[in-house]
């Protein structure tokens, strides 16, 4: 086990290794007050990590420290039980106690509070999650959104040292989800514990989290602020997982520090990219550019021409694929507003010139 000196550090620190059904090789940390989103496809181990933090899953090897407390240290034989870990957990399907009403559900999380104060505290929590007046209702008599609020209140009742949210928004409709997002953001301002959110929804994670942790096959691939991870993925694997459509290969030609650019060749084209001097001249690299940084020519920056091979409208935006046969067999994608697509009369089969904003081009080391 890697020796992680984290006993004294604040917040949550997790280092897990397992070769079970869902293999784990994960290192995550979450500071007090921070919301960390674990993002990855199904089977990436994100829920397993959350369950391991709660003590509901036992890894082969692992260390979990929370605010200086050791919850798990397999080398030292320490494994604190779930009920002693002081975690607040919101389950995907909420797992409310069906025979108890909302107030009683919350009271079950208040075992550490004097019994005379439990009822008052439950009332406060119901108010906090906008459910005052509904405390006597059984879960079956509550809507999905209301059930989620009871689950959040019950998790907070415990005065948890860490709040764990396992896809808490997946079982509600879109309108309710937006409202619950806002409520979570409000709640965050009142509580200072580390919060770990598991989601497969990248937009949700980007909107709510301070940091993203991208997982695949139980391995943490990259952690960082959402927009850093989205715009600067560590490698092609992460780029794909964060839904980057424009992933290509090129060769580094040179670096121009005074202009803040790195030049790369891409097929017959030479492109200016963001300045990344760590990549040696002559090195073959993967590079990525968000669809938002590609547009129908606005100036003479990184202009390439190709044939429009597809146009798909999604809401107010149109995704246009352009085949640039001199450079790549994969099309280049760009997003343009519907109005602009109409004004420019973009049609499949038409030859157009597009411009790639250099600061959007991010270089990555190719995978071995």
């Amino acid at each position: 086990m890697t020796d992680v000196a984290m006993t004294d550090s604040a917040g949550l620190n997790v280092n897990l290794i397992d070769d079970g059904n869902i293999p784990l090789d994960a290192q995550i940390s979450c500071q007090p007050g921070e919301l960390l989103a674990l993002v990855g496809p199904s089977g990436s181990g994100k829920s397993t990590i959350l369950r391991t933090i709660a003590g509901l899953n036992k890894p082969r090897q692992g260390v979990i420290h929370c605010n200086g407390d050791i919850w798990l240290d397999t080398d030292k034989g320490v494994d604190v039980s779930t009920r002693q870990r002081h975690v607040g957990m919101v389950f995907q399907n909420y797992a409310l106690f069906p025979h108890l009403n909302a107030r009683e559900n919350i009271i079950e999380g208040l075992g550490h509070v004097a019994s005379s104060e439990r009822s008052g505290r439950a009332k406060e929590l119901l108010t906090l999650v906008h459910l005052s007046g509904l405390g006597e209702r059984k879960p079956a008599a509550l809507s999905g959104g209301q059930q989620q609020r009871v689950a959040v209140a019950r998790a907070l009742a415990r005065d948890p040292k860490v709040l764990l949210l396992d896809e808490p928004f997946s079982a509600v409709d879109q309108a309710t989800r937006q409202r619950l997002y806002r409520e979570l953001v409000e709640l965050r301002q009142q509580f200072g514990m580390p919060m770990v959110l598991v989601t497969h929804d990248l937009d949700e994670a980007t909107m709510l989290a301070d940091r993203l942790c991208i997982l695949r096959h139980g391995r943490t691939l990259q952690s960082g602020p959402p927009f850093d991870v989205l715009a600067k993925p560590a490698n092609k694997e992460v780029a794909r997982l964060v839904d980057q459509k424009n992933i290509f290969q090129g060769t580094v030609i040179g670096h121009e520090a005074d202009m803040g650019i790195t030049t790369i060749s891409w097929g017959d084209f030479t492109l200016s990219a963001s300045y990344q001097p760590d990549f040696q001249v002559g090195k073959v690299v993967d590079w990525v550019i968000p669809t938002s940084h590609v547009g129908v020519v606005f100036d003479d920056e990184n202009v390439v021409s190709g044939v429009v091979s597809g146009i798909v409208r999604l809401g107010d935006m149109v995704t246009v694929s352009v085949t640039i046969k001199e450079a790549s067999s994969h099309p280049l994608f760009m997003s343009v507003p519907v109005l602009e697509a109409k004004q420019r009369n973009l049609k499949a089969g038409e030859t157009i010139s597009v411009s790639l904003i250099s600061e959007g081009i991010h270089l990555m080391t190719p995978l071995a």
Partner: protein
Amino acid sequence: MNWMALELSLKLAAWTTVLLLPIGILVGRFLAWRTFRGKVFVEAGLALPLVLPPTVLGFYMLVAFSATSPFGQFYQSLVGHSLAFSFDGLVVASVIFNLPFAIQPMQRAFEGISAEVREAAACCGMSRARILWRIELPLAWPGILSALVLTFAHTIGEFGIVLMVGGNIPGETQTIAIAIYDRVQIFDNASAGLMSVVLLLISMVAISATYLSASFVGRRHD
């Protein structure tokens, strides 16, 4: 009407039910949530009384209870009388014979409690005892209740095993089912008919109670 036999039957059913309540909860809960090597054989063994002729089970018990068997000797040295042809023997036989009637409904009831609900209870910091008392038992209650009613009704009506293990000693081992048989043997159909009606009513009330409780619990969660 043989009131003594009815009283004995009710007493036997009550003892069997009371003894099988904790056994059923412990074993049913264990089998519901644990997987272990050979589990299927344990379950099959517990279900055996469902298919084994009562006389066969009764025969083996009679052998086990006899003063020549180690178990029979041990019991006799402990209590001072033999298990065979005694009320105690009837209770032991009845408990064994009713194991599947008690355990299976309880096991299904515990299986019906989702793992997430139990995990949520642990995350709430509830003690094991509190989880059992506040979460598991209330949720499993319909299954537990129907197990108890089935056990009770089944014990009252049991014939073969009682006759094998207990014989037909009035006041000690003669239950109402045996008393009916006894009456029919001497062509006293009037008494046999009256006792049969009583058994029929008890069985009807018992089985209705399980259906009523199931529908009541179904509404309770709404």
